[in-house]
């Protein structure tokens, strides 16, 4: 390594243990608090028992937390090196479950990891952001502004997008595209491009409508007017709004939610767990949880400002935007602001996929934070 990196190598001498102690423990604590809110709500949904959901969720979280901490202390240059291979692996897995899974595995879209089931589409969310960040890491400001350098990122983005849309998993597809576009935007692509694309997408909505499946159209129509279908999909939104609204300022009390405990709410342990939380803890409880998400996600978004390598900056911000979208879609959905698209609330909803995505992403974000003083050569780290 040359003298240009004279501060880098010295700092890299930090041991794993030093890096571990240097982690942002405030963010780890906020993450644990959000997950704990999830345990409490799963305990409530099961009518005051740890079985069957809260206990399993705790085991999952413990494993995911360990994975997050391991990722956080691994040298960021490893992640630069695995960015493209991870993307390829993700695409292969998507193919595997899409093509092979449909025929050979009875249509399943997940891989069984033993302690949880992993959807490749979740991994692809992270891998896409990593790959695009890796691409722009090697591009100068001038290069980043040219339209020619958009070809590779768009391919990195559209291939997984197309595969996920085919599933069809609109929520995940939306998150992949948003995360990718956010990285391209932050990397410095011309601003007019986004304005024009925005107009273009709006104009294309009527055309895209034609390609939606009937149930997807139903969901959107029901979202527009929930009362039109008070017993079908509109029932879910209506009941969720009743639960949210009836919680009032301070809620009905832990284990006292009537909409949830009397089963008026749908999908309580997964998509509508935020509703259960607000019914029992009210606007105050909701504000605390949303504030925790806000703190953690804003940290992720802004950590790059103090980072000395473009890869880390783009990776952290891109992942934070992706995760923010999770929260926004889920909470907007249960409030009747967005159509019901089946996106869980990460860390709180029951289930492993969203939690693992969140923890892997935050492992990387923490890693970016830990290695914020590290500079990396445009061509890569040279570690591998």
């Amino acid at each position: 390594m040359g003298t240009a990196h004279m501060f880098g190598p010295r700092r890299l001498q930090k041991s794993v243990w030093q890096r571990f102690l240097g982690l942002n423990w405030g963010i780890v604590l906020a993450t644990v608090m959000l997950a704990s809110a999830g345990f409490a709500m799963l305990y409530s949904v099961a009518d005051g028992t740890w079985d069957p959901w809260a206990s399993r969720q705790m085991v999952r979280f413990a494993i995911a937390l360990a994975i997050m901490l391991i990722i956080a202390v691994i040298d960021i240059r490893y992640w630069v090196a695995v960015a493209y291979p991870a993307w390829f692996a993700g695409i292969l897995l998507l193919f595997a479950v899409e093509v092979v899974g449909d025929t050979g595995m009875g249509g399943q879209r997940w891989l069984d990891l033993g302690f949880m089931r992993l959807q490749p589409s979740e991994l692809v969310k992270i891998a896409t952001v990593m790959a695009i960040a890796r691409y722009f890491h090697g591009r100068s400001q001038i290069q980043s502004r040219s339209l020619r350098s958009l070809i590779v990122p768009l391919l990195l983005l559209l291939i997984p997008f197309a595969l996920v849309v085919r599933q069809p998993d609109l929520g995940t597809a939306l998150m992949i595209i948003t995360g990718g576009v956010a990285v391209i935007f932050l990397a410095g692509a011309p601003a007019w491009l986004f304005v024009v694309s925005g107009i273009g997408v709006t104009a294309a909505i009527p055309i895209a409508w034609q390609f939606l499946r009937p149930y997807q159209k139903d969901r959107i129509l029901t979202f527009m007017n929930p009362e039109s279908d008070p017993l079908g999909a509109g029932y879910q939104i209506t009941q969720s709004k009743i639960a949210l609204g009836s919680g009032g300022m301070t809620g009905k009390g832990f284990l006292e939610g009537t909409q949830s405990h009397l089963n008026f709410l749908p999908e309580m342990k997964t998509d509508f767990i935020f509703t259960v939380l607000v019914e029992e803890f009210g606007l105050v409880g909701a504000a605390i949880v949303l504030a925790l998400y806000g703190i953690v996600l804003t940290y992720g978004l802004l950590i790059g400002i103090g980072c000395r390598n473009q890869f880390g900056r783009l990776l952290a911000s891109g992942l934070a935007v992706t995760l923010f979208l999770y929260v926004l879609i889920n909470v907007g959905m249960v409030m009747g602001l967005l159509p019901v698209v089946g996106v869980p609330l990460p860390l709180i909803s029951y289930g492993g996929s969203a939690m693992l995505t969140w923890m892997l992403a935050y492992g990387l974000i923490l890693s970016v934070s830990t290695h914020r003083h590290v500079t990396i050569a445009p061509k890569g780290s040279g570690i591998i």
Partner: protein
Amino acid sequence: MPREGLRYQTYSRRTLLLAGLQGLALAALGARLYYLSVVNGEKYRLRADKNRISIRLIAPERGEIFDRNGEKLATNTQDLRVLLVPEQADQLQPTLKKVQQIIDLDDRGLSRIERRIRRQRKFVPVTLAQGLDWETFSRLNVEIPRLPGVQTDAGLSRLYPGGEAIAHLVGYLAGPDEEDVVKSPLYQLPGFKIGRQGLERRYESTLRGASGTRRVEVNSVGREIRELPPREEALRGSDLHLTLDMRLQQYVMQELGEEAAGVVVLDIATGDILTMASSPGYDPNEFTRGISNANWQALLKDPRAPLLNKSVSGQYPPGSTIKMVVALAALEQGLISPDTTHYCNGKHRLGNHTFHCWQNRGHGKVDLMQAIAKSCDVYFYELAEKLDIDLIADMARRFGMGAVFDVGIDGEKEGLVPTREWKRIFQQQSWQLGETLNVAIGQGAMLATPLQLAVMTARLASGQQITPRIVHKNGDEPVFHQPLDVNPFHLETVKRTMEMVMEQGGTAHDYSRRKSAPRLAGKTGTAQVRRITLEERAGEGGVLDNSELPWQSRDHALFVGYAPAENPRYAVSVVVQHGGGGSSVAAPLARRFLDKTLELNTTQTEEQA
């Protein structure tokens, strides 16, 4: 690093822009939540309550029916039942098998229960058995911890301890009809029953009471989770107190046995109906439980008409029991004096038709006393020739014939008091004198119910317009009856003749009766239900005896009477359908009923005792 600096600047600017957008989005979510839970919180709270709170009715406990001595005629008993909530049972088959070892449940019943379980929602309890005895019930309760989903339950069901003896009076309960269900939300309660016959129907609104309400929390599929205060208790129905003496009623029914008969016993002073019996009876409990089709068909097809309340709905020719009324009509008109005599040779000619006395060989020379004591028909033919039918009808009405007293029992019939006008309107013919002769001996068109005959007797005995009643309306308020518009001297004369009926030579004389026994007064009647042809009368054996006839052609046996003769307190009427002769069948029964009534001394007040 100028290049790096430029990239960094763009990145920082745009990151802050995104952070701002994120902040805005979070604020929008917060605002939306504020709008839902604070601005519209009240509205959603109400909707949440509407979701979860359901108002349910509480069925009132039905009022009981008592006889005059406080004996229960209709009551509510604990119905011990065992229920199964299918969703709470781990395994249905083994649970049912275990229950089957305790309760009496055959395989057919078991498959019926299994069908029910499949049909209805899993949280709705299915009745496995009801009407359990305490022993079985306790054994079940011991086993219940090992039988998930099985519950025991004590509800109320109607019980008529008197059974057959009072079926016609109290009636029975049954579930509301399909079309009735909309009339009251109470009718939708499972197991709710309403009065279908008798007093149960007539006094439905009194007995029922008022329903209460309770608020229950229900879940999204309507299952009850728990009850929420406040609870408005149901108002128990009012009790019904009858004038009936159940001991006498039971005795009468027992004595009537298998006969098709109607009997009414009245307390003359008050008009209280002490007994109103109709035989054969039926078990009202069977109806309340739900009668089987086979048993129902058997009741319908029985020629003795068990379902008919013969005391008020049975209309019979009064036979010779009408003769006191005819005699009074003649006395009041001054047509006869008690000493007026006629000669009876067994027949009486009117135009070219011969009217026969029941006594073929005739009674010889008879005065009014003997004419009633021996029930001479010819004497009354003579009277009838001089009496207008409307005069007889007028006198009959004064004694309660043709009247509906509306005592509170369904199906009270008015009988028939024929008049000239009636004949003109209903048969478009003018009245014939021969018809008056028939009416004068109680054959003809005249019809009376046992209740009317008892009222007639009570009025004869008291000279007052006795009105019968079966429900105590205002406790023990004294009852005043208007005197009858009949010369008391004439009434006394007729009462003497009724005493003579029971004496030696009278049609209802009992040789075995002890001298010390209370003296009775009465009148026999035999109502012919077939036409006796000239050929039969002229034939070798003469008029066929009742025992030679099929049941449906036999005479009705009647008796009316009162006791004690010198100080009348109780009046009785007995009609035994196709029973045979009044003196041989009805009179002995009536004597026993009157003696029993006197023995029970039911209406005597404590001061008198």
